[in-house]
C-alpha cells in the first residue's frame, strides 16, 4: 500500500473530530478569553501606566499581535504532548488504530495536521480580540492562520516526539519548565528581544515562536523581504520535528 494515504489520515482525523465534539466548548472558551485577560492586564495595565510605545506600536497592539504565538504554542505543544501520551499509554487508542490499515507515519501525520488546523484557528483569536482593542485590520492578516498553522504543526511534532520519549507523565514538567516557558517568554511577545543581552538575541532567532511573532507583526504592519526566510525557517523546523515524531512514535508503538 502507498505511504501517507489520504484515506488513512482522514480516518484518524475523523476520530479527533468526533472527540472534539465532547470538549470544544471548554477549549474554545479559554482560547477566546485568555487573550482578552492578557490584553486587559498587560495592554491596559502596563500600557497605560508604565510602557508607552514599543517598536513604534501601542503596547496593546504589540502584545496583541505577539499573543498569536502564545496561543499557538499553548494550543499545540501542550495538547500534543499530553494527548499523545494519554492516547498511547492510558487509552491505548494508538494500538487500536494501528490494528487497522494505518501505519505510524500516517497516524502521527494525522495527529499533527489536526492540532495544526485547530491551532491555526485558535492562534488567530488574539488578533481578532486585539481588533476590539483598536488594532486596525490589514490584508496581510489573512496569512496569519497559515503562519500559525505551520508553526503549530512543528510544535505538535515536538509534543508527540516528547510523549514518545518520556516514561512517565510527570516528566512533562521538565519539558514545560526547560523548553516551553523559555521559548514563550523569549519570543518577543511581551517585550522586544533587542533589549536582551546579545547571546539571547542570537538564540531568539532560532526560536520558532519569535519568528512567528515577527511574521504576525509584519502581516499587520507591513512585510519585509526577509520574511520569506522566516517562513522557510518555520517549514524546516516543522519538517524536522515531523520526522522526529514519526521516528520516536514508531519506536514506542511497534515492539
Amino acid at each position, binding site marked *: *500500500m502507498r505511504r501517507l494515504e489520504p*484515506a*488513512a489520515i*482522514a*480516518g*484518524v482525523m*475523523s*476520530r479527533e473530530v*468526533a*472527540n472534539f*465534539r*465532547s*470538549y470544544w466548548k471548554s477549549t474554545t472558551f479559554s482560547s477566546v478569553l485568555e487573550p482578552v485577560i492578557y490584553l486587559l492586564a498587560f495592554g491596559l495595565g502596563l500600557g497605560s501606566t508604565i510602557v508607552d510605545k514599543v517598536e513604534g506600536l501601542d503596547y496593546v497592539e504589540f502584545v496583541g499581535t505577539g499573543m498569536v504565538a502564545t496561543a499557538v504554542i499553548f494550543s499545540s505543544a501542550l495538547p500534543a504532548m499530553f494527548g499523545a501520551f494519554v492516547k498511547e499509554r492510558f*487509552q*491505548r*487508542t494508538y*494500538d*487500536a*488504530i*494501528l*490494528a*487497522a*490499515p*494505518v*501505519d505510524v507515519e500516517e497516524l502521527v501525520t494525522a495527529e499533527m495536521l489536526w492540532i495544526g488546523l485547530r491551532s491555526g484557528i485558535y492562534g488567530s483569536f488574539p488578533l481578532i480580540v486585539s481588533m476590539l482593542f483598536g488594532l486596525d485590520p490589514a490584508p496581510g492578516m489573512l496569512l496569519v492562520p497559515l503562519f500559525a498553522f505551520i508553526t503549530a504543526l512543528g510544535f505538535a511534532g515536538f509534543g508527540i516526539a516528547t510523549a514518545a520519549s518520556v516514561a512517565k507523565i510527570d516528566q512533562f514538567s521538565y519539558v514545560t519548565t526547560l523548553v516551553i516557558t523559555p521559548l514563550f517568554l523569549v519570543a518577543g511577545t511581551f517585550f522586544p528581544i533587542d533589549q536582551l543581552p546579545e547571546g539571547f538575541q542570537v538564540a531568539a532567532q532560532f526560536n520558532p515562536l519569535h519568528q512567528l511573532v515577527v511574521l504576525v507583526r509584519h502581516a499587520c504592519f507591513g512585510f519585509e523581504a526577509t520574511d520569506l526566510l522566516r517562513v522557510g525557517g518555520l517549514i524546516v523546523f516543522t519538517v524536522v520535528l515531523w520526522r522526529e515524531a514519526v521516528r520516536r512514535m514508531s519506536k514506542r*508503538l*511497534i*515492539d
Partner: protein
Amino acid sequence: MPAIELKGVVKRFGEITAVDGLDLDVPRGICLGLLGPNGAGKSTTMRLLTGQAIADEGSLRVLGHELPAEAKEARAEMGVVPQLDNLDVDVSVQDNLAVFARLYRVKDVRAAVDRGLELARLSDRRTDSVEQLSGGMRRRLLLARGLMHEPDLMLLDEPTVGLDPQIRTQLWSLVDLLRSQGVTILMSTHYIEEAQRLADEVAVMTHGKIIARGRPDELIAKHAGRETAEVYAPPARLAEVRAVAEAQGLTVRPAGPAIAIVGSERASDGAIPPEAIRRAASLEDVFVLLTGEEAE
C-alpha cells in the same frame, strides 16, 4: 493457501523470549483456539500478526501477505479484537464504529455502522457514550468495531477475559455467528471451556511454543485417554491414592482440593478407590498435563 502461516517465529523482549520458535498454520474457514496460560505468548503472537510487533526470526504470512513488509495490506483484510479494551470512552457508540469504518476504508459508513450496532445489539444505545455501557456491551462493541469491513479473518485475543459467565455466553453466540458465516478465526484464550466450546481445533501454547494441536476430541484421546477419576479426600488419603496410581504408571494431577487420575480406564485392581468419581476425560486434563498449570 492457509489464512495464517508462521514458521520458526521468535520474538524477544530483552531477556524474555515471548515467542520461541512458533510454527502455526491456520487453514481458512476454521476457528483455531490458541489455548495457553498467562504469559504463554498469545498476545505477542497476535501483535506479530498485525505487524504491531516485529519478529526477530522466522517467517510470517497472513492471507498471502508477507509480514512485516505487507502488514498494512494484511490488516486491511482482517479484524482485530484486542485483549485490553481500547474504545474511545468520550465518544458515542456509533462514532466509535464510524471512525473504524473509515479507517477500514468502508464505502458506505452509515450502513456499516447500522450493521455493527445490530450485531452488537446496541442500536438503542447508539448515541450514548461508551462510558455509559456495561462491560459486556463494551466487549460486544469492540467485536463489532473489528468487523466494520466484513473481514475474512478475525483475531480475537482473550475475547471474554474478565467477563461474568452469563455475559461470556452472549459473546460466544456472537463468535458462533461469525463461524457460521465462514470467517476464519484465531482466538486466544486461557479458558478451557471457551476453547472446547468454540474451537474446531485447539493449539496448546506454553513458553512461546505450540506443544500440541488437534481437534479437542483428538487431543483428549491422545493425551488423556477416555476417562478420568477424581478423588476428594483428606490430604493423607490423597497421598496414598496417588502413590498407588503412580506405581501403576498412571498420571495424577492436582485438581483444586482433589486429585485427578488421568486415563483411569487403564487402571487395574485397587488403583481407583471406590469413592472416586469417574468422568469422561476432558480438555482440561490435557491442558493441565501438558502445561503443568492449574486450569481456570
